[in-house]
């Protein structure tokens, strides 16, 4: 067996397993931790695929910021276990499973019965280096970059506004 393939299989199993773990776990914190594991695996994949910068960014943003945020909120709300009523419709889960299988079948058809033949990956040196990425980002994709900045600003303000406790005006 090819060494690349072995590595790939191992990593894939880990990724899928952690995903399923996240899916099935009752405890929200465990789910979050499984997801962090999944993110790490995917970062490795990124490195394999010659995107080191993206990989680092991925780990930093997703695992470092987003999941931390998730955990903060879980702790804040005390939502490790889900309390509350019973499911109101039991047919949703089987339906979802059926549909998922359908989709899987379709994807299988798409992958293995298509006409186009993709070429092999070429060996590349410094493909996804930060320099290259930065060059492209700030030359070709400057406008989206700036707009994204605005987006983040808006999100930040939005988050603050939505989560704010509303103080009563004196006298009302």
């Amino acid at each position, binding site marked *: 067996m090819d060494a690349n393939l072995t590595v790939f299989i191992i990593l894939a199993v880990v990724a899928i397993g952690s*995903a399923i773990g996240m899916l099935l776990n009752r405890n929200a914190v465990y789910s979050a931790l499984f997801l962090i594991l999944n993110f790490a695996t995917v970062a490795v994949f990124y490195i394999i695929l010659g995107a080191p910068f993206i990989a680092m960014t991925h780990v930093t943003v997703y695992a470092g910021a987003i999941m931390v945020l*998730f955990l903060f*909120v879980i702790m804040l709300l005390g939502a490790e276990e889900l309390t509350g009523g019973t499911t109101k419709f039991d047919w949703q889960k089987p339906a979802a499973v059926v549909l998922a299988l359908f989709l899987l079948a379709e994807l299988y058809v798409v992958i293995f019965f298509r006409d186009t033949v993709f070429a092999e990956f070429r060996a590349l040196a410094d493909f996804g280096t930060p320099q290259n990425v930065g060059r492209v980002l700030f030359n070709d994709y400057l406008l989206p970059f700036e707009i994204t900045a605005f987006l983040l600003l808006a999100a930040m303000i939005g988050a603050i506004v939505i989560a704010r406790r509303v103080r009563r005006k004196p006298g009302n």
Partner: protein
Amino acid sequence: MVSIEYYIGLSAILFIIGTMGVLTRRNAIIIFMSIELMLNAANLLFVAFARMFEALGGQIFVFFVMTVAAAEVAVGLALIVAVFRTKQTINIDEASTLKG
């Protein structure tokens, strides 16, 4: 390198697992995490094809997706917090007053 079919397949499986999570779980936060998983799967595929076609645009796009995902998570969680203040629960089945 493994051929691209493997990455496509992996990405698909991760995406489907994420969808299952969205459809099946009742905890709002778990649903959010499933959405992140779906986005992740898409990112993986982008990077794979960027490597395949040697176009850095794919990676740039991943960059932007990540940014947007972060923004979305921030706002979404803020919403969940706000909803929790009112309903004292994050079971999304409880948020069904818009029925009918």
